[in-house]
């Protein structure tokens, strides 16, 4: 099969590819959430709690985008169905990113001595909910993904910087910090490619397949990190 044939094969089966991709990511998120949930209950550590929330929200986002919205890959759907799943996906993926950032920064905003009662509903997280809502509403009104892309690119630049500092501080002693940094750089690359593909190239399938592969590597890296770190 030549390259054009392969490209056409991908194009013909894009619905199936998206569903399989969504299933894999949701499964990885479920495992990470379950493992970190157990660790949180044992340790009462807020950072683990926020990391768990990040993957919970990523999992919900991918479930909505690639499994619930999968109906739209195979059958015609209404504009309302598209807008609803798009907005929900945006909200949860943005919140996942915010939770990931906050899991690295929570000590600067919360007292370790008086941990927040709820990690999903507190004043600090409320600010993130409001920002996510504003981005989703903005994108909804202009029927675009631009605000989400730009906010996520900015967010992952910030997380990449923090993870690079963590990596340099813990070099040699904590091996996953390197992979964390790599995962964040890959996330940044994936969001940039996503923005280019969506805003300039009309969701080019070739680029999208590359983004799916990058995303799978990122989630698999985190799964590896979680499993390796908790292995006795």
């Amino acid at each position, binding site marked *: 099969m030549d390259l054009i044939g392969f490209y056409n094969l991908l194009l013909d089966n894009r619905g199936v590819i998206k569903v399989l991709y969504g299933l894999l990511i949701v499964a990885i998120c479920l495992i990470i959430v379950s493992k970190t949930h157990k660790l949180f209950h044992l340790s*009462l550590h807020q950072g683990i709690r926020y990391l768990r929330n990040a993957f919970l929200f990523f999992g919900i986002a991918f479930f909505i985008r690639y499994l619930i919205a999968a109906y739209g890959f195979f059958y015609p759907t209404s504009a309302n169905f598209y807008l609803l799943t798009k907005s929900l996906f945006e909200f949860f993926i943005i919140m996942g990113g915010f939770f990931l950032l906050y899991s690295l920064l929570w000590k600067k905003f919360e007292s370790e001595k008086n941990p927040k009662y709820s990690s999903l509903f507190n004043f600090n997280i409320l600010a993130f909910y409001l920002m996510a809502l504003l981005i989703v509403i903005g994108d909804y009104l202009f029927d675009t993904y631009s605000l989400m892309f730009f906010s996520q690119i900015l967010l992952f630049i910030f997380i990449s910087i923090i993870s690079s500092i963590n990596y340099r501080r813990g070099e040699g002693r904590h091996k996953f910090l390197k992979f964390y940094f790599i995962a964040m750089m890959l996330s940044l690359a994936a969001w940039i490619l996503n923005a280019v593909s969506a805003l300039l190239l009309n969701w080019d399938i070739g680029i999208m397949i590359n983004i799916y592969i990058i995303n799978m590597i990122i989630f698999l890296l985190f799964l590896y990190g*979680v499993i390796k770190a908790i292995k006795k």
Partner: protein
Amino acid sequence: MAKKRERFEVIKDILQVIRGSRKIKPTRLLYASNLSPQMFKSYIDELLEKRFIQSETDEKGKKLFFITKKGNDFLEQYQIIDNFIKNFGL
């Protein structure tokens, strides 16, 4: 200057003292934990609420703390949790 202990480490230290003594009076635990009385109370309240420790009264009416299975599990998993927190920069 000694590094300030993280909350997570303080919990480990308190549980280790309790486990080492099997049953311990609050005053002895307060001295051993190296915390202010106010901080000590907030940690103990939380450990009791989360069932990492329990309390009972001895024949003289004095309160004693002892570690629960959940508290023991925490100590056994401490290295794993500590490793996880450091590897993820949390």
